[in-house]
């Protein structure tokens, strides 16, 4: 197999461990945090404060919370329910505690940070995930949003009192005033009968805005400003309330118990023989080896083609309930439970080279042993490395990997990452947008960690993301298949409508491809950033995105001859587009901002249940539209 090197666009960059779970999950559009749990999250009601212990009054339920991006810690609220807000004052600055306690827990919520604000969620009141306005911070520390805050020991020498903090490896923080999403899985410490700790607490997974920041980080003890110095099997959730205003919504949680799903009587059968790329009938193959095995491990295979590996045994289910089984894989798979096939790929949805596929099924399983057979087959496969991952989640059961570590090689495609260094990085590819490929498109990455994708076939801005740039495995692994450079950060997918069109009137529907569109090419400035040139009928367009710290500024210059008042630009689409007091537009309930929109006549219209922000320009004599897209 090829041993490629990391592709860095200047000198060789340090290889960053791929923290994101299988690539397939990015492709499927689901974030790492949305790996299926068997049970729906229990919503934490924000109709009132019943779930929380009383405070001095800084914590309140409101209906709306808007942060003013232009002033530190500035915000306004509107009455109502659904949002938990910390309205801190000199005299009211309590931390917030839940009335209930937890051991293992998964917490999922959205948070809005006013500018310069600070808070944190303490699991068991002791172990903090930091909340902070970290927008644009070039190298996050443990004190940035999503960081595992450091522990503190006064006895240590000056400058070393803080220790064992874990910084986010990339900055995927959104701008203040925008809702951000966190999903955190926490495992409580374990104690023996005598009360001695037998296992440290851990953050099993921390994901911010869809990007996993930490995995399986063990915690030696409570972090700084913990409510208690000791450690315990259970404790309440605590939210810091004395470091600034903050708002939460859509809080959900799942409590996990200590029980596990285990496998017993695990055996493998290794079959060889004749098949191409289909899932074979094992009866047509020759059983070459078989026997007991300690683990489901695709590494038992010693060839790359024309074999099938079948694992059989019992799934030992601790509690009756609904379970979610997942198989991540290359080549072909089938899962049978209790004698029935419950999960399989089909000939028309096989795993594609340069990526792994993820199959999911939901089953109601009773407590007890359930025989299963997991079959992995590689025929005449020119595709990926051998890979098989098997996972289960259930009631009170955190998603558990039932296969051996390495059976699904998470770093299989890490070497195909493109990391911009020293200059902007362009890669033309089939950019995936809403599940379909844009075949004439390009991804543009910045060393500062913000990136975008542009469709040169229609002149459309497709998406923005922050964090790492792209992985090109589906382009350059073997023959490649999808030919798509997959974004590796926190993605904001935009509408993908072409930017410039000539409309007959301001109610005309926006065209999928503008009439008379021709892409002319692009030129690169001294930082290797592209300026796109295209024409729409008789209008010539130059279109450029320039990074400004943590956001992009877009300038679109138009010239030529077009019917006056008929050339329109599509700026944004959303379920809601609100004009803010400072003139910025908040799109989709504060998912992102359009700011400083200039150069024409802007207005918001409603088409088919969606809001569209358009701007009309007069091309004669030249027009210049500019705006900032802040996310």
């Amino acid at each position, binding site marked *: 197999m090829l041993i490629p090197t990391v592709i860095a666009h200047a000198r060789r960059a340090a290889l960053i461990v791929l923290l994101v779970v299988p690539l397939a999950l990015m492709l499927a559009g689901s974030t790492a945090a949305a790996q299926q749990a068997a049970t729906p999250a229990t919503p934490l009601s924000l109709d009132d404060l019943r779930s929380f212990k009383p405070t001095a009054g800084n914590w309140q339920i409101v209906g709306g919370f808007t942060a003013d991006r232009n002033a530190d810690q500035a915000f306004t609220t509107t009455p109502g329910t659904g949002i938990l807000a910390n309205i801190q004052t000199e005299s009211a600055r309590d931390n917030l505690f839940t009335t209930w306690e937890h051991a293992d827990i998964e917490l999922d919520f959205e948070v809005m940070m006013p500018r310069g604000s600070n808070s944190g969620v303490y699991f068991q009141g002791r172990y903090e995930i930091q909340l902070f306005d970290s927008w644009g911070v070039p190298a996050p520390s443990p004190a940035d949003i999503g960081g595992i805050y450091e522990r503190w020991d006064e006895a240590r020498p000056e400058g070393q009192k803080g220790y064992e903090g874990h910084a986010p490896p990339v900055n995927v923080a959104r701008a203040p005033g925008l809702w951000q999403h966190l999903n955190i899985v926490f495992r409580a410490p374990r104690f023996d009968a005598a009360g001695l700790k037998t296992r440290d607490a851990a953050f099993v997974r921390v994901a911010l805005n869809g990007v996993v920041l930490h995995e399986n980080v063990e915690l030696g003890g409570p972090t700084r400003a913990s409510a208690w110095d000791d450690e315990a099997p259970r404790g309440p959730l605590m939210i810091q309330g004395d470091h600034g205003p903050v708002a939460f919504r859509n809080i959900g949680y799942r409590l996990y118990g200590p029980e596990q799903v285990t496998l017993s009587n695990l055996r493998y059968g290794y079959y060889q023989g004749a098949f191409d790329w289909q899932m074979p009938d094992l009866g047509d193959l020759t059983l070459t080896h078989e026997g007991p095995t300690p683990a489901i491990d695709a590494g038992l295979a010693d060839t790359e083609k024309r074999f099938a590996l079948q694992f059989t045994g019992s799934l030992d289910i601790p509690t009756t309930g609904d379970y979610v089984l997942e198989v991540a894989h290359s080549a072909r798979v089938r899962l049978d439970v209790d004698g029935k096939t419950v999960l399989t790929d089909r000939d028309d949805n096989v795993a594609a080279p340069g990526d792994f596929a993820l199959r999911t099924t939901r089953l109601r399983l009773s407590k007890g042993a359930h025989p299963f057979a997991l079959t992995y087959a590689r025929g005449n496969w020119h595709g990926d490395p051998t890979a098989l991952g098997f996972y289960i989640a259930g009631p009170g059961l955190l998603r558990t990997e039932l296969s051996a570590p390495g059976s699904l090689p998470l770093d299989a495609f890490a070497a195909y990452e493109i990391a911009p260094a020293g200059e902007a990085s362009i890669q033309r590819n089939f950019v995936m947008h809403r599940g379909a490929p844009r075949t004439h498109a390009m991804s543009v990455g910045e060393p500062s960690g913000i990136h975008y994708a542009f469709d040169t076939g229609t002149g459309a801005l497709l998406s923005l993301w922050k964090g790492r740039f792209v992985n090109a495995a589906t382009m350059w692994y073997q023959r490649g298949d999808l030919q798509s450079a997959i974004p590796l950060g926190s993605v904001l997918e935009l509408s993908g409508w072409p930017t410039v069109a000539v409309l007959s009137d301001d109610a005309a529907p926006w065209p999928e491809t503008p009439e008379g569109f021709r892409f*002319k090419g692009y030129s690169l400035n001294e930082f290797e950033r592209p300026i796109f040139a295209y024409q729409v009928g008789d209008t010539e367009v130059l279109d450029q995105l320039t990074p400004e710290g943590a956001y992009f500024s877009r300038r679109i210059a138009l010239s030529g001859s077009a019917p006056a008042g008929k050339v329109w630009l599509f700026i944004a689409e959303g379920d809601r587009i609100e004009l803010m007091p400072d003139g910025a537009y908040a799109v989709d309930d504060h998912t992102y901002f359009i700011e400083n929109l200039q150069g024409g006549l802007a207005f918001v219209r409603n088409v088919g249940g969606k809001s569209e922000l358009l701007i009309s320009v007069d091309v004669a004599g030249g027009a210049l539209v500019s705006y900032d897209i802040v996310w």
Partner: protein
Amino acid sequence: MIKPVTLHGIAARQPKPLARVVGITVAAALLASCAEPRPMGDPLDHTPEEVGYYYQVVDIPIPEDIILEVGGLAVLPDGRPAVATRHGEVWLVDNAYGERPEAPAFTLFARGLHEPLGLLRHEGSLYTAQRGELTKMTDTDGDGRAENFETVYAWPLTGNYHEYSYGPLLMNNGNFFVSLNLGWFDRGESRAKWRGWALEITPKGEMTPMAVGFRSPAGIGILENGDIFYGENQGDWIGSGWMTHIETGDFLGHPGGLNWTSEPEWTHFQLAYDDIPNTGAPMAEAAKTIEPLKLPAVWFPHTIMGISTSAIIQDITDGGFGPYAGQVFVGDQGHSKLMRVFLEQVNGEYQGANFPFYEGFASGILRTAWGLDHSLFVGQTSRGWDATGKAPYALQRLVWTGNVPFEMKEVRAMPDGFEIVFTQPADPAAAGDPAMYTVQGFTYKYHNTYGSPAVDIQTLPVRHVEVSDNGLRARLVVDGLREGYIHEIRLGALPSQSGAPLLHDFAYYTLNAIPDGERLTVAGAHAAASEPASDVSAGLKHRTQPPASWNSGPELTLTLGTLPGLRFDEAQFEVKAGARVALTFNNNDDMLHNLVITAPDEADHVATEALNLGLRGQEMGYVPDAGAVLFFTSLLQPATTETIYFEAPSIPGDYPFVCTFPGHAATMRGILRVRA
């Protein structure tokens, strides 16, 4: 000295010493730098029987962090090769000729392209065909890096990975030529406009479709006279690889792209996929009823003359690269080798012969370009398709030592046979003996099945040979010539007048048309002998049923299969002398294999004989009729199994077993140890 006239009337001149001088300088320079890459050695390290005496490969070392999977290759006016890579980069290489002792220097000119598969320098810019467009790249400020990327013309895509786009070539009229692969949807299909077509594009971006019928036109080249050729790859409808001359309005053979013939931009003909006869009759038959169908000028018999035709380049060195001025070199991606093509025109259409030329490149060949010193840059990549050269990518130079090999230089069609023109005078007595020559005619099926075996093979009598006074020409009178058929011409051990051996001893002539003209007067005429395939499955060497005399069945059952990399998965078996053995061979690989047990120490000899079975080899299961062959299986298709039954030899010893499919024997072997 007689000057043979080449295709373009350019007389071959004395070989130029320039390449040799430069070559030795390169050698000295590279040796002095203690560089790892293989320098050109002294030709005197080789004997005249070895190809290294005439041509040698020089490696160009590539920095570790550049994945130089060559997709496009062009030499700039200052001599530097420019390389477009499949990762979307364009690199300029300084000191590529080793003119200075340090390693070559690579400078980045452009990146971010989507799998460029061609490179052309024209009027100060570099042009390339990416997956979705023809792009013009220009360094506007002279800093060595392109700033301007102009989309000359963009074409639609479905997103299917197989939709590769190749080029451009610069046509004599100043327009650009690109060729477009079909998509792969379990068969070759054109689901986006113009896939499977060749397009002509003006510098301003106005497009006219030129020809249709391509499957995988990866190799494209243009001759000095402006004629464009392309290489096709075996697949559905393509019985074996070929090289065909493209003219406006042609249908080249694969019907996948015919659905777009109804588009208004195409004015030449309208045909549909189902209009093309799917009978398996030879393509020459179909051409009689399908008027636009263009027959290949030269067929490349599969596995003998490569398996995936690529780079096409005419020798424009005027004798600076050997005695082949005006001929065409064709690369092969799968077999990592270069072949040579002689073209002539009969009745106004191209046809001709191909010859082996040089094998042993590091990876799969995709692109070639002439260096300023008349060496040939060979750009290579094998990602996605295995090649005999195991490196994932490479850039090498092929250099002529200045020594002229004794070869068949040309094979020309005659009204009554063929005329061979040698590079040097042949020994007249030997060259004049008809027994020195073997001629076979055959063809391929034209149908939607993937590939075709050689069919309708006939051995043709060579009735008479007339050798010219200077020994340079041998005119063969051959009976049973068939128009539209390929003719293999194989020579025995023919020495030159100075005693040099023939470097390569066979050629394939594609006889689309037999030329008119004067026939030689020769007594008698024999009908063509049609030799049936010899039945090698006779007797005790290949028993697939247990012998009736084995009352209690076999005493010993052996089983083996294959491992990746052309290996059996068992290296050794032990049996008692005389034991009754059942041996099951499970071909779990994705290519053809057999298993042949030979007398001790005879594996290599049997394998060589199998190789020499040539065209008939496949139907004989690559098992030669030789006493050294003891037992053998059939030639097994992928994913099939066969059991053979035999009694182990009575004399103890090590009896090798080997797969005799051409190219496999070196690694695919083991030992049957017979003990007392």
